[in-house]
């Protein structure tokens, strides 16, 4: 499953602080969309607003719409818990549950909401998810070992496997490689390219080569000035953004003449 996301006039606030101003964009299914921009420009906030994870910070709220195949995630009758089941997330630092084995980590999402799963179905799902995250061959002999015993890159792929085990429509990645070495990064990037066959993938990254390598569409965010809300400056095919952007600010950022 893979769904289209449309963001319409989205403003995001943390209490009185206006973090992001009037974002409009369409994120295509079966594609990778990268958010780039300098620190504090609101790209992670926008990403987190796509599965309402920014709401874990008290006082956070939005004004505007985020439509997932036409359904507004912020409609009054929408349960954020259900939103997060459909829109999975991978974080900056690998965060497998340290108290669980590799297998239990994969099943963590499936076992929520009182769902029951037979042992054979569970084994099947673990294998499928780990294969989907290119991790199966490395861990198939130690599924009952703690997930925290894996290397950083393996842990991050475990987190991806855990996210896809619940069969979401969208996978959000918040700088998924920034804590990893180059080889692990490459493994994750290969995986991202595979994931877009089935999912809508949105990735925030500080690494512009990474954005250029993995994404189909790129969105550039920026601040007008310190203390101002972040804004979407420009969005388009990655090729165009990196070689022929419409906006001066985008070009400055891409070419490193920024700030």
């Amino acid at each position, binding site marked *: 499953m893979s769904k289209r996301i449309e963001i319409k006039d989205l403003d995001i606030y943390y209490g009185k602080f206006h973090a992001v101003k009037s974002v409009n964009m369409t994120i295509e299914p079966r594609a990778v969309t990268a958010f780039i921009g300098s620190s504090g420009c609101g790209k992670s906030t926008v990403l987190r607003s796509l599965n309402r994870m920014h709401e874990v910070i008290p006082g956070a709220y939005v004004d505007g719409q985020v439509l997932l195949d036409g359904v507004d995630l912020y409609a009054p009758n929408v349960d954020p818990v259900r939103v*997060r089941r459909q829109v999975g997330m991978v974080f900056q630092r690998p965060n497998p549950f*340290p108290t669980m*084995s590799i297998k239990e980590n994969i099943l963590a999402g499936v076992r*929520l909401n009182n769902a029951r799963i037979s042992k054979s179905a569970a084994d099947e799902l673990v294998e499928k998810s780990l294969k989907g995250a290119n991790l199966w061959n490395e861990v198939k002999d130690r599924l009952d070992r*703690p997930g925290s015993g894996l290397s950083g890159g393996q842990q991050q792929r475990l987190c991806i496997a855990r996210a896809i085990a619940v069969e979401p429509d969208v996978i959000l990645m918040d700088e998924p490689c920034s804590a990893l070495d180059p080889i692990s990064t490459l493994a994750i990037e290969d995986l991202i390219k595979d994931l877009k066959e089935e999912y809508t993938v949105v990735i925030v990254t500080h690494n512009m080569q990474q954005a250029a390598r993995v994404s189909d569409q790129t969105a550039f965010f920026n601040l007008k000035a310190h203390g101002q809300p972040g804004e979407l400056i420009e969005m388009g095919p990655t090729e165009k953004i990196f070689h022929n952007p419409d906006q001066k600010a985008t070009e400055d950022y891409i070419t490193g003449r920024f700030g």
Partner: protein
Amino acid sequence: MSATDIPEASTDPRSDSHSLERSAKRFGDTFFRGLSTGSGVLILLILAAVAAFLVGLAIPALLADPETFQFSRGQSFWKYVAPYAFGTMWSAILAMIMAVPVAVGIALYLTHYAPKRISSTFGYIIDLLAAVPSVVFGLWGIAVLAPAMRPLFLWLNEHFSWIPLFAGQVSGTGRTIFTASVVLAVMILPIITAISREVFLQTPKLHEEASLALGATRWEMIRQAVIPFGMPGIISACMLGLGRALGETMAVAMVLSGSGIISFKLLTSQNPNTIAANIAQSFPEAHDIGRNQLIATGLVLFIITLAVNMTARWIINRRKEFSGAN
């Protein structure tokens, strides 16, 4: 370093900050290493001294002819101590059953549900509860709690006397092992709450977010991330509480009207006493071998407490690789 060293040092070009030679003893390092090592050794010495005292004075009672005993003459020492050891553990277990769920619940409320303002005030009040002297709890137990428990006892006895725990003739005073356990539960509640709260606050945000991002509700997030991560801490907290419940003397001695019997019945006037309370109550009249007998029961209490703590450590270590510490 004395003042006379300074001019000498400044005239020697090799002893300036560029020199790689080991400088003379660094006084601060030496001093603090000695201080911390000394403190560590001191606590071991104190523990050894207490153990030596208990063993030394307990041996006469263990070796003596039971016919010469002051307490329970004619019975072996083990027969004498068994009911008190039972009463100690029974009252502590009952107190734990009542206190732990409430304490963990309060800690979770304070860390994950309550608004910030309430949680800090509330936490402060809990800490205050820990500062109430046990004699005050004893007075409260006798004067307020025991009479107040009577109607509950009668009701339990009337409707649930088919459960052996609630069978028998209900005590007229309410000063039963049940009441004593409630007092103990209130006394150990603050320490378990305070430590659990600290532990729950340590849960990494990353793990909480991982859980929420999978579509966990708040309670599921707590069950998936917060409680497993805090489990070693909760166990430690429980052990501290249990240690206090096992050793508590004054409140139990005041509230409980116990004797040297083994009984699981919670509501009757026939209650087992605890080791600590029995020592406090019997020591003034004890003499000669009687003192040794009481000290020997103290040794038994010491061993029980030690065993409980070692079991807890073992439980924590068994799941070490899954503890989140690595």
